[in-house]
């Protein structure tokens, strides 16, 4: 018996030791497995949402450019005092009807088209559209040919004509590449709204609404359902992500 018992003890020790070793060996695997299933930076980007913006030009105050200032601060856009070549991601446009003389203002930015001409023409694929509809430029493979700027019907893009300083880590830019409004993608990815929208709301103008066009219950979708809106250059059928009221 005692002999058998000794064997049992030995067997038990062997089995438990093997199990422990196996468990220990499995830990890094489990850990890596967990890492593999952790959400990588782009895991949140799916076609389930489509980010969009509604701009009500009736609420856009003449003389206010808080959205522009907020954009410049957020994304580190500092000019060189050369307006023809300095970057602008969003600008205030003043309209005047030729027949009636009616004037209004509105902010104009990248329209984040469903069918973006800039993405079509880009030779390297640096211009791209994320699954959630945000149109971006991959600064690593942009060769600076500027064909996207020729193709954009909204003049939304800027070429970086000179050296850059004091960049924001979340909004990388590069001399010799093209850039445009990112919908503040770094904020959107952490469930915040773009800086321009926030600035407009801070002043209580509330001319800009940001949200998910695919969610019928989002504020933007409800307003789009309720009011008549339009796309700039709707004739091109680009299905822009930015819509306007009052123009």
């Amino acid at each position, binding site marked *: 018996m005692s002999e058998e018992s000794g064997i049992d003890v030995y067997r038990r020790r062997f089995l438990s030791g093997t199990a422990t070793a196996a468990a220990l060996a499995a830990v890094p695997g489990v850990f890596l497995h967990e890492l593999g299933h952790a959400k990588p930076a782009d895991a949140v980007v799916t076609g389930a949402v489509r980010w969009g913006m509604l701009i009500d030009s009736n609420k856009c105050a003449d003389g206010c450019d808080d959205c522009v200032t907020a954009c410049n601060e957020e994304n580190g856009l500092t000019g*060189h005092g*050369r*307006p*023809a*070549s*300095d*970057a*602008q991601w969003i*600008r*205030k*446009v*003043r*309209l*005047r*009807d*030729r*027949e009636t003389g009616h004037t209004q203002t509105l902010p*104009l930015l990248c329209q984040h088209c469903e069918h973006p*001409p800039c*993405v*079509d*023409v*880009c*030779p*390297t*694929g*640096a211009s791209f559209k994320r699954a959630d509809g945000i149109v971006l430029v991959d600064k690593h*493979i*942009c*060769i*600076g*040919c*500027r*064909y996207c*700027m*020729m*193709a*954009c*019907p*909204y*003049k939304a*893009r*800027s*070429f*970086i*004509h*000179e*050296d850059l300083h004091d960049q924001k880590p979340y909004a990388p830019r590069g*001399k*010799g*590449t*093209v850039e445009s409004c990112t919908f503040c993608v770094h904020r959107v990815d952490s469930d915040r709204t773009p800086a321009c929208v926030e600035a407009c709301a801070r002043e209580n103008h509330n001319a800009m609404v940001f949200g998910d066009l695919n969610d019928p219950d989002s504020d933007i979708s409800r307003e789009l359902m309720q009011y008549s809106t339009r796309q*700039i*250059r709707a004739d*091109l059928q680009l299905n822009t992500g930015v819509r306007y009221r009052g*123009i």
Partner: protein
Amino acid sequence: MKPLDYREIDGGLPFYALVGAIGVFVLAGLGAAFYMEHNGHWVTGMSNQIVWGTPHVFAVFLIVAASGALNVASIGSVFGKAMYKPLARLSGLLAIALLVGGLAVLVLDLGHPDRLIVAMTYYNFKSIFAWNILLYTGFMAIVAVYLWMMMERRMNVYTKAAGMAAFIWRLVLTTGTGSIFGFLVARQAYDAAIMAPMFIIMSFSFGLAIFILVLMGLYRWSNRPLGDVVVYRLKNLLGVFVAAVLYFVIAYHITNLYGTENHGVERFLLLDGGVYTRVFWIVQIGLGSLLPLVLLYSAAGRSRLWIGVACGLVIIGGLAQMYVIIIGGQAYPMELFPGKEYSSSFYDGVVASYTPSLPEFVLGIGGVALALAATVVGTRVLRFLPVSLADEQVDPHHPVADAA
């Protein structure tokens, strides 16, 4: 006709002096490119309004002329015209050289010329630009093979097949170049299917004008006989091409003028566009089209000097046409809000201003110089040029040849 004898041009001091003189302009172009890249494009006349400037005028002109320069070879190989066959080798060489010159300008103007390898390894196949990268490199390869078939006696039987392939390829290539503008829906001056065939006929004209000048220049410089038969045939053909370009330009504007939506841009280009209107009427139409037609088809067309002047005018007119298309087309504001006037800090709704800067111009000239240098060096190292293009050599019906 006697059998043709092809020889390299002579070397020695005059050759090195010529290459050195052209090389100075190549180096100046490289220097200009370095200056622009080091400082950034703000030192040029280009801006966020005029994103393509003078370098693109030269680059697109050279690329278009490159495919046109091959026409002389195509007429010989594909269409079987015996008189053009002795000219075919130079035609192929010039086609490759002009394309290299144009592409060099295009690449050196990029925001990131250092990323040329990216352009070669990342492709967006919906981009006409990406297609063109393949069309340009393919063109050089096909024309190189075509030249080999022509220059290697054993391969001569394949000359016609290679010539046909090169001819078809060049038509596709120029269609691609024209479509860079034809496909742009955003701007009023572009977005027109006629751009592709118009660029093809422009290539016929510009390429032949350069070919005639280079041919006359090289034969004069190397003291080889060049008879009137060749020169007159080529200059008469050039006249036809110049008239054909004029026809396409008229068709483009008439079509635009019919639709009210294009009245603004047409008024800008034809009537009150300032420098663009002047460049269009005076340089492109007057000096670059009508005057060469008069020179080529009047008594002046019997003079080598006036034929050379006419070719030079066609080239200047071609550059002017590119200037009006590329820069004039961007200067006219985009129609964002039809029926409304609009303005902003980003130059919306106003005609964009552009003044060509010296570095841009020097870079463009550098591309032309690179093409010429490649041609001259090519004729020195390989047998591109017949020893004689005298009338009795090239004309089967020439009385002297018959007597002999």
